């Protein structure tokens, strides 16, 4: 791309001869002396820093909307009162499939009526149990529809802990806000809280690479369907 400078210079060289060249030299020297070198660096830094701020601070705020769960839920309180840990409510059905978030009917077994003085429980009983309306829970761990995941295989056969993927959610006394990706509609927990994608714990993010990482560790590197080894179609059926 030619700038206006180049053009001027070109025209001068052709028409003005040596004198014109000399005068241009003069201009260059002058600019070097009191040129905008400092500004250039400054502006670079401004642009650089502004981008970083936009990228790391503002962008995540724009990308994710914050949603509250319809009812706040105290996992600690419930884990204390049940015998079988997570599986007491997050059941495996008789056919072995995993039911996920409990249905209203399960909750209603105990919560036909308000038991304590928690305002959240009151909302739950009045708005949902009494009206027989399923609670529209926002599921932090919901994977895209193109992902096939079997809880049975991981929990029953491989004997994995819930915590490995879901973190210590059973120790929480209230539900954190659900951060929904405005573009994809999925929870922020899939990419992970950290925008860098760096994780400290195994449950910090649940992208494909994280599945693959564990699979590689546990079952060795496998790559082909034809040779009956793990590959795309294990999860993307």
């Amino acid at each position: 791309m030619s700038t206006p400078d180049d053009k001027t210079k070109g025209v001068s060289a052709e028409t003005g001869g040596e004198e014109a060249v000399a005068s241009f030299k003069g201009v260059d020297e002058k600019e070097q002396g009191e040129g905008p070198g400092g500004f250039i660096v400054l502006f670079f830094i401004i642009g650089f820093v502004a981008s970083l701020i936009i990228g790391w601070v503002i962008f995540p705020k724009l990308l994710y909307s914050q949603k509250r769960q319809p009812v706040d839920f105290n996992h600690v309180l419930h884990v204390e009162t049940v015998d079988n840990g997570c599986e007491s409510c997050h059941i495996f059905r008789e056919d072995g499939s995993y039911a996920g978030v409990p249905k209203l009917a399960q909750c209603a077994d105990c919560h036909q009526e308000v038991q304590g003085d928690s305002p959240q429980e009151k909302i739950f009983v009045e708005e949902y149990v009494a009206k027989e309306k399923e609670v529209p829970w926002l599921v932090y761990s919901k994977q895209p529809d193109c992902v096939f995941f079997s809880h049975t295989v991981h929990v029953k056969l491989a004997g994995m802990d819930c915590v490995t993927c879901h973190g210590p959610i059973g120790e929480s006394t209230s539900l954190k806000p659900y951060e929904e990706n405005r573009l994809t509609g999925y929870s922020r927990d899939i990419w992970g809280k950290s925008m860098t994608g760096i994780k400290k714990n195994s449950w910090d993010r649940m992208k494909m690479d994280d599945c693959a990482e564990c699979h590689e560790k546990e079952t060795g590197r496998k790559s082909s369907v034809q040779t009956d080894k793990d590959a795309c179609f294990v999860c993307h059926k």
Partner: protein
Amino acid sequence: MKIDRRCFLSLGIGGAAGLALSPIPWKLADDSAIWTQMWPWTPVPADGEATYVKSACTLCPGGCGISVRKIDNRAVKIEGMEGHPVNDGGICLLGLSGLQLLYGPNRVKTPLKRAGERGEGKWVKITWEEAISEVAKKLGDIKEKGESNSVACISGSDKGTVPALFKRFLSVFGSPNFMRMPSIQDSYEIANNISLGFIAQTGFDLEHAGFILSFGSGLIEGWGSPVRMIRANSSWRKAGIKVVQVEPRLSNSAAKADKWIPVNPGTEYALALGLAHVIIRKSLYRNDFVHAGASGFIRFRDLVLSNYSPDSVEKITGIKKETIEALAVDFARSERPVAICGRGQGKSQGSLGEVMAVQALNVLVGNINKEGGVFAVNDPAYIAWPAYQSDAVGAAGIKKERIDGAGSGKYGFAKSLTNRFAGAVNSGSPVSLLFVLESNPVYSLPDTKDVKDAFKKIPFIVSFSSFMDETALNSDIILPNHVYLERYEDVPATAGLSKPVVSLARPVVSPQFNTKHAGDVILLIAKEVGSPVADAFPWKDYQTCLEGTAGDKWKILNKEGFSSDPAFTAQVVNISPGRFDLSGGVADLSILFTPVNSEEDSKAYPLFLLPYDSFRIANGYIGTPPFVIKTVEDTVLKGKDILVEINPATARANGLSAGSYATLKTPKGSARVKVHLFEGIMPGLVAMPRGLGHTAYDNYLAGKGINVNELIGTVEDPASGLDAAWGIRANLIKA
């Protein structure tokens, strides 16, 4: 020092560098990838607990059991029912796509009354009460005039309680005009009636047969009960059973057979008689079975020995006499050989002579009433309702002659001849009110123009269709039935089965729209019409009627989803040797075996148009669902163009080449078609699939191809009144 453009360039570069080190590009790239996979309009079945509902498929007469997977209250997949005596877990393409009929856009969602001209598609929504009282009022007016016999009903089937309720309604009201859509069942029924003396279906124990001789039947293309037939075909392959297919076109069934014998269309009967000739001449028949002394056999023997020698049959059929000789010996010397007929899926009747000639082969080799053989199967016996009382008008009306003539005069052996309906109405037989149940006669009866003309003459047409099909479009009032996945109904499977089964269709999901069970609607109409019609329907609702009718079998039906107890379902009739009258009791046998050809000028129409059935195109009441229409090859349907099959020799003679457009002309109409060259069709023929060219239905089906029924007509078989047409004279002119 001053700020100039280089500073801003620098700002931009800095910004870009910062951007590259921020998560924006990487995160957005990843999210956009996910976003493109997650279009909000892509339907995704909800996640939840899977339950299964056992039910029955009603989309064809096959009577398969189905098991429908549901997530919460949404049906998500139809599978074949394991352990069902008809299909044992198997399912066909159409059955698999039934959910698109349930949830598809072509449902009639509420009772509708015509607002504009017939067929214009302008409707007003009415309530069920208004709809029923309107129909009842019309019926009342007709009765008052003493014209009760001018009420008629065309039904897709005459088996099961729902058609039986309609038939009973007509009977007590005073009309004999309950008709069912034509099929090869009509022909087999008449053949049984004249050769055995009673009306019965014909069942085939094809699973155990030892030699299959098919006269154009689409063995693996939907003939009989399709899933059962595909299973049987596999078992023949495994056991090395020989299959011989006789037909003018290399259909899929012919391609999969051990031997394909191309035959001049419409001359299949002559081949069967030629084979009988060889079998009798070489004394390969079962003397005890044909009861050699019986007059029927002697007359039949004399006819085939004198008129149907392989030499003469070669001239008629175009099949070499050596082939005929060898096939006859092969057939007669095989263990348990079975000959079957019914072109394609058996949707057309064919001539009586053809069925009689083919049945004669089974009788000659004595493969009747035993394993691997042919059976006469009675209608299901469980529908036994108390007698009813009709009034004077009703009693007089029921005794009048049927509109289609069946059951009287020269049509005395027939139960239903719906093929004659349009002709009769057009020539002046009055029909003042027509019920249309689970059928689409405006689309699927041959000679569409004739049928439409007949419909124009009927002042009031009541459609019970669940879908906005061609007949519903041409009706005055639509009382939409639940689709089969929303209703209870007994489903007797009689399509060529030797062991009859009755299955139970059950609501898989609750009704999606403001529809009503046709069984309930006819009960409500009866109540509104009042005594004595109302008194003949003592049931509170259809459900009570069905449970009462099933009696002590209801429990087992409800639990297992089917019953194959012969005491409950249809019964196989014991046919003793010699019982079968090969002459069919017909005084002049030659009338049976006279070729029924269209008389049109062979110069104007040098070719023959031959409709054929495809497994991938539904051609009856049900329109092909989107999943299925997607599977139709582009040698059959390309874009909106239909392709007709012709032999390359025919193409050369008519100056046509592959893919060129042509005008297909028949005495009934003309259509623009595309040409597909196919070595597997005899020269001189043009083959076109049934089931395309819908004008109603959704965008997936409407306007694609040509309805072959617009181009063909009916040809009445003088011996029986059946529609003997197998095609029509045609011409193909380069467009």
